[in-house]
């Protein structure tokens, strides 16, 4: 087997099955689709979902066809993920695989066809979430990147950077603990869910930092006022979409 031979196949290439028994990878750059993919990343409590929803409303008001897709939301797969979490069946490996399955279904069913149709597709969390979490759980960095080799490259990937304590304070405001997998309790880092969350999210933050140069993430300072962040986000998105002539815009 040629595994580990250093051949890099992804991420950001889409498998386009041609004839059966003919194995081919077609390389799609972002420019090949009329649509545009914009994703937001960051740890829980970074405020990325708030920013994405404000961006969503603004883009709609500009007449763009906008579609939203959320991490872990495939109608075909999410029940299995839920079942695995509830029964605590998930190991780092199956946690990784079931999330990639969910992502694959959303890619095949909605993200890809919508980009072909000329929509602006907004994703709350993307493959970088998997890279950060799975590696924080001890999965091999290269294996996880290969796993998502079928993903479409986003036009813009915003990373909402926030210090750990700020995020924890935002999250604990209004609830008194964290869920089992959210806090990385499966890793036995600490008995207390808040402490476990802190340690686990710390690992995730350091993975995100490494990915900024690796994948060219666009960093937003998530400690700034919401309005200031949104203004920056809109500016960057506008500059990009103005160049995208083939995008469908309603009059």
């Amino acid at each position, binding site marked *: 087997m*040629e*595994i*580990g031979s250093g*051949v890099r196949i992804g991420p950001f290439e889409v498998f386009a099955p041609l004839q059966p028994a003919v194995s081919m990878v077609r390389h799609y750059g972002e420019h090949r689709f009329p649509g545009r993919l914009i994703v937001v990343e960051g740890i829980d409590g970074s405020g990325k979902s708030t920013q994405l929803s404000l961006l969503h409303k603004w883009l709609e008001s500009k007449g763009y066809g906008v579609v939203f897709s959320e991490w872990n939301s*495939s109608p*075909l*797969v999410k*029940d299995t993920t839920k079942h695995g979490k509830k029964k605590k*069946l998930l190991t780092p490996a199956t946690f990784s695989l*079931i999330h990639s399955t969910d992502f694959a279904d959303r890619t095949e069913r909605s993200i890809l066809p919508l980009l072909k149709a000329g929509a602006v597709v907004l994703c709350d969390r993307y493959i970088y979430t998997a890279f950060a979490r799975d590696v924080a759980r001890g999965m091999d960095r290269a294996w996880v990147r290969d796993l998502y080799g079928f993903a479409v490259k986003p036009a813009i990937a915003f990373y909402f950077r926030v210090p750990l304590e700020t995020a924890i304070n935002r999250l604990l405001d209004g609830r008194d603990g964290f869920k089992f997998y959210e806090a990385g309790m499966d890793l036995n880092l600490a008995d207390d869910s808040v402490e476990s969350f802190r340690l686990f999210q710390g690992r995730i933050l350091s993975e995100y930092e490494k990915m900024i140069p690796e994948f060219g993430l666009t960093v937003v300072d998530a400690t700034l006022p919401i309005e200031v962040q949104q203004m920056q986000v809109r500016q960057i998105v506008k500059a990009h979409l103005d160049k995208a002539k083939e995008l469908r815009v309603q009059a």
Partner: protein
Amino acid sequence: MRETYGRLLPEMRLADLGGKLIVIEGTDGAGRSTQIDLLKPWLEELGHAVVDTGMTRSPLAGEGIRRAKEGNNLGRVTQALFYATDFVDRLENEIVPALRAGFIVLTDRYIYSLMARAIVRGMDPRWIRSIYSVALKPDAVFYLRLGIDQLLPRVVFSRGFDYWESGMDLYPGHDMFDSFCSYQAALLTEFDRLSAEFNFQMVDAAADARTVCAQLQKNILHLLERDSRKNFISRLYNDSITAPQPTDTGLYAIAAPVAAPSANGNGNGNGHHHHAAHPGR
């Protein structure tokens, strides 16, 4: 010591995985489950503890895959990954613990079927192989081979055409007969390729079940005797010496991507082979 196809899952300790991992591969209708039903009581009679496993039997993903297939709207990449989830759940929670406890694990299909299906559906072979690089190398792979002419009456005349067995997701709009033939022929071609690469032991599945079983039994006995002899000899030499205790730290040295996984000669237990990187075909 047992090996994987190149990458190691977290917490996977290979040092104490005794037992035997025996794979029965073959396309639909080759008689895999019939053979496993014959082999299991036979092995137990000989005094071996046996666990059998197969696709979609995982507590995590089995039910989800069945539900997803009902709707006939399961995409190709999604399908490949759903099956990988099912496989790894069984690998970690069923196969590995059984091997550790010294069981013989009989598995109805293994990564080869999953790779063949994905490759036939147009996935990049490097992609699917990378995913299954975490799988354990088995002690033997028996490939029950059946030509398309023999396959057709066995599958179709007993239970009719099945949407997925006919590869209808690949040939929408075809009639099921044409689709079945194209799909199964493509699978056979892919299996033949994998057979050479992973050193399958070929068994002619066209013969009657008893004959096939006798051949499997002969080969399995050979495997078990060879290893018990080897164990006996190594015990003779090692009893007086303190056996080195495998440690986690030692094992994690292997956890880094290994550049030379090779499956050749895997069934013969002599794992030293030259590895040539050949990116796809």
